[in-house]
């Protein structure tokens, strides 16, 4: 029987890559924590991580991965048994092995095996750290057809073998499958009737087997019972040349592995993109439930529709409401399947903080809270880059070196925290450090050099907090390999905005900085307000709407060179007439409706004609289907089939404030 193993591949890659993430987390926890009761569990979990990959890789024929993980496992076993001490150098090497195992898995997934040299190199390092290890047995070569031989076997199962589930008759049957078997029973050990214990085995056999099978195959049949049974195997089979040669061929195979150039260092964000989802059973059950409800509602509607008259139209109403509810819940359920806990993104930062901290000679502890808050999988994947940048930024610019912290009366160990929390239909992710905070004077100096501010403009803390998002402003005293990549916070903000989210900053001089990302829970569907302007209708994403106001002529102020401002309870906000942006002409102010919108920490007032109500809309990309249009984030199709544009509030706010 041939079995297609490829169907297990994706599951293997997904599971192994996730397993490596967990292994890495355990290893880092092991490094942080002093020896304690947890450390043994952690060590076992790390061992198990490599052990599982080895087992599955071998079974699926990924020999290079199996061999590599085998060596790591052997090394970890020394730690586990206490023969070698868990120390820094070993930890670094095992971490490098985790990175390399990821690379091997990804290469195998792409069907492009690579990294043989690096494997050999890491295995050598592990060997140096322990003692020279004997090479593992290579996967056994396929047997060539050998000559027939005769085996004479004496077999008397141990008295306990039945009790362990070994039925000697089954073993005889397996022998019979190997060739021609003659069986002669030996009843000499049968007890007298009264002493007979049905759970014990008393029989013995003399067997003659004529077969092509190799001696190992015959011996293997008795492997499970050998220690407790009497087994004697005499072979009259001539040794084939094949047997004698097998050993040599193996050692040659190992020497001629493919040679490749050194692999580039692993990419942090790669491996997030798994093509399979692990979904909890509850979520799927809930979905199945919802579909059932939907079918019932549909049947009810059909019945009513068949006998449609004035009275039944009234009966249709509650059913339609129910259908709407079902559809909404089903939609939430389906979206829920793609939701993953934020820990999927947070998990990898332990390593980043450790490595970056080490490189910068800073002492930093990572704290993660709210990691079980869920977010759409595709969003999580797209968040890894911006988060990585924010974390690096905090370590590089925010956190002070230990001596400086000590001088300021702070603990030498800085705390960097990642926090996620659901707020309404959004998720809020905070990257907070307890470092030096944003220094307005330093920002002012840089901004002036870069020509970002006017000659006499004073830079307040709030202004500084906005200026750091300007392209071209880098406050790094020197360009280093962390932040000197030409990618600034402006790019991070752009990436977050591309996800319909916002990025803002809160800072406390001398005490720390928090970057706050706010995102809708899913990319595909948003809550929006349907508004009209002239002949057209638009969707304003609800997340940006602060409030709606009736226009009052007395609250409208005109300021020379800066357009119109609206007095909203004492604060003057710039007015943007949507009509002027879209068609060049706006309707009369008094007959319009005003919306206070907020994006990136700034507020404006948007003037529209009418508010039609709240809608949940599916976002369709305009860029993909048409082309990029200024101030428009996308399009959607309303229930009645009308195509409506979704406003890009962030760009409108920026336009209004310029």
């Amino acid at each position, binding site marked *: *029987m*041939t*079995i297609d*193993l490829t*169907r*297990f591949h994706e*599951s*293997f890659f997904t*599971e*192994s890559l996730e397993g490596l993430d967990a292994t890495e987390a355990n290893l880092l926890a092991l490094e942080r924590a002093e020896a304690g009761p947890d450390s043994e569990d952690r060590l076992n*979990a790390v*061992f*198990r991580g490599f*052990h*599982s990959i*080895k*087992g*599955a*890789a*071998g*079974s*699926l024929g990924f020999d290079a991965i*199996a061999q590599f993980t085998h060596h790591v496992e*052997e090394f970890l076993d020394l730690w586990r048994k206490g023969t070698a001490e868990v120390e820094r150098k070993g930890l670094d090497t095992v971490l490098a092995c985790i990175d390399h195992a990821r690379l091997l898995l990804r290469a195998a997934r792409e069907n492009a095996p690579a990294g043989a040299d690096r494997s050999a190199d890491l295995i050598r390092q592990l060997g140096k750290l322990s003692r020279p290890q004997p090479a*593992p*047995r290579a*996967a056994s070569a396929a047997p060539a057809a050998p000559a027939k031989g005769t085996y004479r076997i004496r077999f008397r199962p141990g008295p306990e073998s*039945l*009790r*362990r*589930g*070994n*039925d000697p008759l*089954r*073993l005889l*049957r*397996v022998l019979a*499958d190997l060739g021609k078997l003659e069986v002669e029973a030996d009843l000499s050990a049968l007890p007298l009737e009264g002493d007979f214990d049905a*759970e014990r085995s008393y029989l013995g056999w003399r067997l003659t087997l004529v077969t092509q099978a190799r001696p190992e195959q015959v011996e293997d*049949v008795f*492997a*499970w*019972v050998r*220690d*407790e049974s009497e087994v004697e195997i005499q072979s009259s089979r001539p040794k084939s040349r094949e047997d004698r040669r097998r050993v040599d061929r193996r050692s040659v195979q190992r020497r001629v592995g493919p040679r490749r150039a050194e692999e580039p260092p692993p990419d942090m964000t790669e491996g997030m993109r798994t093509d399979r989802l692990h979904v909890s059973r509850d979520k799927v059950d809930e979905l199945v439930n919802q579909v059932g409800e939907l079918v019932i509602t549909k049947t009810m509607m059909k019945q009513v529709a068949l006998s449609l008259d004035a009275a039944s139209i009234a009966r249709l109403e509650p059913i339609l409401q129910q259908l709407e509810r079902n559809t909404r819940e089903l939609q939430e359920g389906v979206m829920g399947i793609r939701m993953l806990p934020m820990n999927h993104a947070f998990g990898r930062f332990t390593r980043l903080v450790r490595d970056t901290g080490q490189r910068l000679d800073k002492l930093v502890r990572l704290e993660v809270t709210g990691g079980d808050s869920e977010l759409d999988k595709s969003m999580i994947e797209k968040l890894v880059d911006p988060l990585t940048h924010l974390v690096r930024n905090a370590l590089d610019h925010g956190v002070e070196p230990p001596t400086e912290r000590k001088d300021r009366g702070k603990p030498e160990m800085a705390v960097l925290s990642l926090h996620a929390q659901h707020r309404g239909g959004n998720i809020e992710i905070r990257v907070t450090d307890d470092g030096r905070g944003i220094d307005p004077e330093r920002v002012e100096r840089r901004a002036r050099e870069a020509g970002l501010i006017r000659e006499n403009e004073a830079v307040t803390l709030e202004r500084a907090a906005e200026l750091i998002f300007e392209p071209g402003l880098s406050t790094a005293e020197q360009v280093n390999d962390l932040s000197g990549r030409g990618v600034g916070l402006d790019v991070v903000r752009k990436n977050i905005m591309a996800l319909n989210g916002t990025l803002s900053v809160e800072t406390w001089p001398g005490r720390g900085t928090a970057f706050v990302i706010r995102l809708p829970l899913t990319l595909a569907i948003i809550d929006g307000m349907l508004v009209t302007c002239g002949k057209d209708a638009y969707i304003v994403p609800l997340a940006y709407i602060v409030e709606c106001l009736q226009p009052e002529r007395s609250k409208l102020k005109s300021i020379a060179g800066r357009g119109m401002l609206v007095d909203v309870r004492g604060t003057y906000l710039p007015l943007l007439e949507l009509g002027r942006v879209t068609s060049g002409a706006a309707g009369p102010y008094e007959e319009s409706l005003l919306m206070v919108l907020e994006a990136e920490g700034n507020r404006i007032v948007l003037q529209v004609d009418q508010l039609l109500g709240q809608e949940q809309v599916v976002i369709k990309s305009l860029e993909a289907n048409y082309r990029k249009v200024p101030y428009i984030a996308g399009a959607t199709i309303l229930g009645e089939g009308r195509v409506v544009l979704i406003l890009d509030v962030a760009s409108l706010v920026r336009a209004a404030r310029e």
Partner: protein
Amino acid sequence: MAKILVVDDSTTMRQMVSFTLVDAGHDVVEAEDGNKALNAARGKKFDLVITDVNMPGMNGIDLVKCLRDIPEFKFTPILVLTTESAQDIKSRGRDAGATGWLVKPFSPDVLLATLKKVLD
């Protein structure tokens, strides 16, 4: 057709074993660790149990011991999945009452061949 309980914390290995068995016409129940396996086993009858050794929670060796204490599993063949290097696992498994072992890595064909030793 036999009823088989497959216990392994690795989804890949568990699926590989169970898909192979299902393809061969057997009825398979899967469990992720020893405790879940015990829950699945209680009050039921299986023709065969195949379990990994190294699992979080209750490991395979303890599972074998617990199963042997259940009357229905007194004579049920139980195979432990182990690695070539783990000689002591084999003897510990046997002491616990395991029928035999299957050395990882193994191919589906090897698994099916092994079944002959434990199924009628």
